[in-house]
């Protein structure tokens, strides 16, 4: 099916970014757990209880959000740089359908790449005796809450990459809106369900914006 082919193509195209992100996650986790080799390079980060301490969350989500932004920009700019939009968009599907499918492929990849190290880490620390205290999966609640913002940032960066205009002026608007939305929602500390509804609403707005960009964009 064509969507899975786009997903696979995006995965192949994003391999360098994915490997770098996985490396950064590994370094962050090892550093936070006091790994001597890592700490000899990056210094002492401080103690961090998995998924609960702010040290862990800060380090992990700096990498995760940075990955989301890079994925969004890379997805659009690599096509412009190689002129391959013309190849992709001529496939017999609607232009918006193709551009949105490509964006969602990036979203799925970003979410998966950010989730896998955390799940593996969670599994490793859930083994009795690894941590001085008990570990429960419910500790990861705040992690998944922050994880949900990845699509917003990635789609914001993607739309910025697609948008026509100067980088430092109107082109940045979709990305800045995504950052603002993320910051506001995070500060509001709203209920889970409300958060999901709100994020869904933002995603719909982002797709509408993407559709608008596609109708005006010069893909040459």
């Amino acid at each position, binding site marked *: *099916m*064509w969507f*899975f*082919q786009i997903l*696979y*193509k995006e995965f*192949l*195209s994003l391999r360098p970014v994915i490997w770098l992100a996985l490396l950064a996650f590994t370094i962050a986790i090892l550093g936070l757990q006091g790994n001597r080799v890592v700490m000899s390079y990056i210094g002492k980060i401080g103690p961090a209880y998995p998924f609960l301490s702010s040290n862990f969350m800060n380090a992990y989500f700096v990498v995760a959000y940075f990955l989301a932004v890079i994925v969004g920009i890379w997805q659009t700019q690599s096509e412009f740089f*190689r*002129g*391959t*939009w*013309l*190849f992709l*968009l*001529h*496939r*017999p*599907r*609607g*232009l918006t359908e193709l551009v949105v499918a490509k964006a969602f492929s990036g979203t799925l990849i970003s979410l998966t790449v950010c989730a896998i190290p955390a799940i593996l880490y969670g599994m490793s620390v859930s083994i009795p005796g690894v941590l001085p205290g008990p570990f429960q999966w419910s500790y990861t609640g705040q992690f998944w809450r922050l994880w949900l913002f990845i699509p917003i940032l990635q789609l914001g960066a993607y739309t910025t990459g697609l948008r026509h205009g100067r980088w430092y002026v109107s082109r940045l608007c979709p990305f800045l809106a995504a950052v603002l939305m993320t910051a506001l929602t995070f500060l509001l500390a709203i209920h889970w369900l409300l958060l999901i509804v709100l994020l869904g609403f933002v995603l719909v707005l982002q797709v509408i914006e993407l559709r608008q960009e596609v*109708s*005006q964009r*010069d*893909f*040459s």
Partner: protein
Amino acid sequence: MSSYAIETENLCKAYGKKVVVNHLNLKVPTGCVYGFLGRNGAGKSTTTKMLMGMLPPDAGSGRLLGDDITNIQPSTRARVAYIAEGHPLYAWMTIKQLSRFTKSFYERWDQTLFDRIIDHFQLVTNRAVKRFSKGQQAQISLALALAPDPELLILDDPTLGLDTVVRRDFMESMIQIIQKQGRTILFSSHILGDVERVADRIGIMVDGVLRADCPTDVFKQSLVKLVLEFNSPPPPNLKFPEATGVVHSRVFFHQLHVVIVNPDDDHLKLAETLQPKEIIREQMNLEDAFLEYTREKRDVLSFFGGS
């Protein structure tokens, strides 16, 4: 169903103040091999991108196999092959991956034909596209374009940057493709020899305006160079009198070269008023005709219309 595979009406595109395509009325009949000519920056690529829906026009309209170019339906896209200038492909993919990727979008995909073309060009399918030469990448593009068995092919300067041998091979393949009845091809090119071999109709863009649109033979036969021979060098600013059909004139040693569309007795009478020693009528090949026709920037060029 329209007898035109491609139709545009007053299609316009400008970048800032520069008008790149100016009220273009292009009509490509179904089953025609149409050579779309013009110098660099004439607006050929911009036109093909607008036709393919990759670039929104500023004004005017267009139809591709009957579909509005601003809203080409997937079913119509499946019937059209498009090779963009420079053969943009995912360079890190192998031919096998590219074929699998492209195939997934089409209901009608002839894998046997694709494999046959790849075999014909002796390309290794498990090698990344970036490891192939520019000419081989053009061959891969052609194979990908043909596998869905398109009714219409739009090729934007497909031989650009290819050496003579590869270009010849590419054109031979194109001739084979053309042999399939009812298939329409629009291809832009700088290489007039290629166009002369395959196109049965040509369009010439000059500064965003379609200045000629006629059968290739009509263009060659209609454009004539009159060489007015003088005893002594004529004044360097000597110009042929203004008249319908006169494209341009220029002094060349003892001669005045005048390029005219369909010269008649009136033109000859005008030539005689300049009192030349001799008037020689020269027929030109397509390349010379094209060069003479597009050589100088002018506001008005004689228009080749009709069929």
